[in-house]
């Protein structure tokens, strides 16, 4: 929230979120904390792997963030990165060498955190055979040195403005080298050793995961809680019933349509918080006639985003004015496509398909929000002659078709693809840098390739001058909206139900939470 208010031009957007947050009324930091207690959290996804370098799924990284520290950390209420295991750092003027001074911290087994552990962990992070998820963000990192136990040096191959955010990613979690090497990878995966606020107590797959306070945690007096118990409850209604029955303190991922009603439960507030995630229709930019800009723009003009917001998100979303999620350099002044059927028809008239065309859209079966949105688009786009055919499938089936390029359009549901860092580099690189294809497809599968966009991304990555980066990303945002490789619709927030007796809980814009200061007030 604070991030938006610091940019005065974003007040308009912020006021919408503020109105939404008015559903809640939770106190922050002003509350008096009662020490101890075990926090019960009901989640919809279980973890599959708890070691930092394995898998980038949200089920895992959200939990890893509680168990491991990073050199630098994303903290609630701060737009910039804060010191983590590194209490200070300096950057050489050429931007190619970073020197971090480590603070004195201990792992959960009492061993001190040394630069050797940091080097071991970060070497694994940049090794593409070990770290499977985010290696595209690490290509500019060269190597790490540990000249003395409390100093770690990072050598860059090229200037990379967002490298600090990369270090704050879950993959940059620091593990104990000694423990990993003596236990072996498998035993370590079952009993991981990190220096974060909590450590693993027990894990019953599919049911619950218990974390207990790390007695050696370096932040004085934190965590305030004794432990956290994550209960896995996949069904949305069951999660809501759980918090209503008082069996859990926090229930995540409350469906948008029930946010207001859950907020009226006794003793419960609903937090609606910004999330760096967008929801829209992704187009295959090499499939005719979607390779014509006029056609893509026509689809954008023919989409009634206000109606979709009301029906699917219960009014909790905001209109999306950029192709990528609203990360750090997001410019709220870039105009979104207004709903203008005449403009849409005029654009189509200029294209090779003036009378419309058939458009199959891939939709996740069983996801009601996707179905509703697809049906709205079907009836709306028919007005400009585009016949939408809804193709449902489950996740693996659709993924296989998508990466093979065997699709024309894909509906990405709310909360499906979030940014893992608040910096623009991750998403801008994925979508606009056509020199880094994934699974053989550029544009993160949309097959959108543009010289100009690629150059803008590379320029923004290659400088550490914040003002210059802001300028470049703003230009990229405008260019991207004009090129319309997708039909971006709405930014959607996270909706979490929290008992009023819990203080200092909030969801970061990347979707996870820091629980060091969370506490019970009664």
């Amino acid at each position: 929230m604070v991030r938006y208010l610091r940019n005065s031009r974003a007040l308009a957007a912020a006021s919408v979120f503020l109105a939404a947050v008015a559903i809640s009324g939770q106190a922050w930091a002003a509350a008096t904390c009662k020490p101890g207690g075990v926090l019960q959290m009901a989640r919809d996804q279980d973890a599959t792997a708890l070691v930092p370098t394995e898998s980038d799924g949200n089920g895992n990284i959200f939990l890893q963030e509680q168990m491991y520290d990073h050199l630098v950390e994303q903290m609630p209420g701060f737009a910039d990165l804060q010191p983590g295991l590194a209490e200070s750092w300096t950057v050489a003027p050429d931007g190619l060498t970073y020197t971090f001074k480590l603070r004195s911290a201990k792992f959960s087994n009492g061993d001190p955190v040394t630069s050797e552990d940091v080097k071991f962990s970060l070497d694994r992070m940049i090794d593409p055979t070990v770290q499977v998820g985010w290696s595209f963000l690490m290509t500019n990192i060269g190597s790490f040195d540990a000249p003395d136990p409390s100093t770690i040096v990072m050598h860059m191959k090229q200037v990379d403005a967002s490298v600090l955010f990369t270090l704050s990613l879950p993959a940059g979690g620091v593990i104990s080298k000694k423990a990993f090497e003596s236990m072996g990878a498998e035993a370590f995966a079952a009993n991981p050793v990190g220096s974060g606020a909590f450590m693993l107590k027990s894990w019953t797959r599919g049911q619950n995961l218990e974390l207990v306070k790390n007695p050696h945690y370096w932040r004085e007096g934190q965590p305030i809680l004794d432990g956290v118990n994550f209960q896995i409850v996949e069904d949305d209604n069951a999660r809501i019933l759980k918090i209503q029955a008082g069996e859990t303190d926090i229930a995540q991922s409350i469906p948008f349509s029930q946010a207001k009603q859950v907020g009226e439960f006794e003793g419960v507030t609903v937090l609606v918080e910004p999330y760096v995630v967008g929801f829209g229709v992704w187009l295959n930019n090499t499939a005719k006639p979607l390779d014509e800009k006029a056609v893509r723009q026509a689809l954008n003009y023919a989409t009634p985003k206000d109606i979709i917001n009301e029906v699917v998100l219960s009014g909790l979303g905001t209109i999306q004015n950029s192709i990528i999620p609203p990360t750090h350099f997001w410019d709220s002044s870039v105009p979104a496509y207004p709903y203008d059927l005449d403009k849409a028809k005029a654009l189509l008239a200029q294209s090779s398909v003036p009378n419309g065309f058939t458009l199959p859209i891939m939709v996740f079966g069983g996801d009601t929000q996707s179905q509703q949105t697809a049906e709205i688009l079907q009836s709306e786009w028919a007005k400009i002659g585009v016949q939408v055919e809804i193709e449902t499938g489950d996740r693996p089936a659709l993924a296989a078709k998508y990466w093979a390029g065997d699709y024309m359009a894909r509906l990405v549901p709310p909360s499906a693809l979030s940014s893992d860092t608040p910096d623009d580099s991750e998403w801008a690189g994925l979508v606009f840098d056509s020199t880094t294809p994934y699974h053989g497809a550029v544009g993160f599968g949309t097959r959108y390739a543009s010289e100009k966009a690629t150059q803008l991304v590379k320029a923004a990555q290659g400088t550490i001058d914040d003002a210059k980066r802001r300028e470049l990303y703003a230009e990229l945002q405008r260019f991207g909206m004009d090129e319309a490789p997708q039909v971006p619709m709405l930014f959607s927030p996270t909706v979490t139900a929290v008992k009023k007796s819990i203080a200092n809980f909030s969801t970061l814009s990347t979707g996870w939470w820091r629980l060091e200061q969370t506490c019970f007030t009664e």
Partner: protein
Amino acid sequence: MLNYLRRRLFHAIPVVFGVSLITFLLIRLAPGDPVRMMLGNVATPQAIAFWRGYFHLDDPLPLQYLAFLCQMVSFDFGESILLHAPVRDLLVSHLGPSAILVIYSIAIALCLAVPMAAYSAVRANRPGDNLVKLLMMVAFAMPTFWLGLVLVEIFSLTFRLFPASGLRPGPLGFVWSLTLPAVTIGLGLAAVLIRTLRSAMIEALRADHVLAATARGLGPARVLARYVLRNSLIATVTVLGVSLGGLIGGSIIVENVFAIPGIGTLLVGAVGSRDFPVVQACALLVGISVVVISILTDLTTALLDPRSRLN
């Protein structure tokens, strides 16, 4: 009896074999890559290649099937692609709740069905019978998840008697947390059983020996218990056996609503992430369970009806 058992088990082998082969082929025919599902959105080509090799996913199909058969014989079942945990451990941890849930549901269904069917049969076509028929129609027509949620609303939220969801530890905790799910399934099952049991009982009540027993002065309870019930149960046992087969993997909806980590949840999750080893093992388990239930049903029928033993 032993011969009969031996013959049935011998015939079960091709059934189990067929189930495993069909599942093996079907899950591989479905589009989607298990390794991509495990690694996530931005997996590197090297990682994908490594894991596909590790799980032998690029070996020729007959070879993969042979490997699966060898594992099956030694109760190995391999390693879950998504979770990297031995499939055997996953099966065991998920089988417990499912098995107890099924047994509990049958117990509740029978406790409801037998008395209500008897009551209904004795008062055939009178208001009491019609009331029972109406109630059972309603129970049968209600969607399972809706019934489950309603029960939670009443017994967990309003009366705080049972937990809203999840499995509590310990044997007592198990039973306590599985009560509402078992009632949800049991009600639907009872509705099915009452129909067959009621018709069978009405038929049995018309028999001459029942008239004779009543004429000799035996009370209605004794007549029902000794002379009517045993004859009527035969058809019902068959129906119960068929319903049970569906319950083993089909309790997914109830498991989902009550957050019970059972075989249904495991199977659906595995299909959704194309976790081949887990899908194959679960399908095998369900197949074997159905065969075992079928044998048990026939044995029970044989026990109840001496006439069928002659074959």
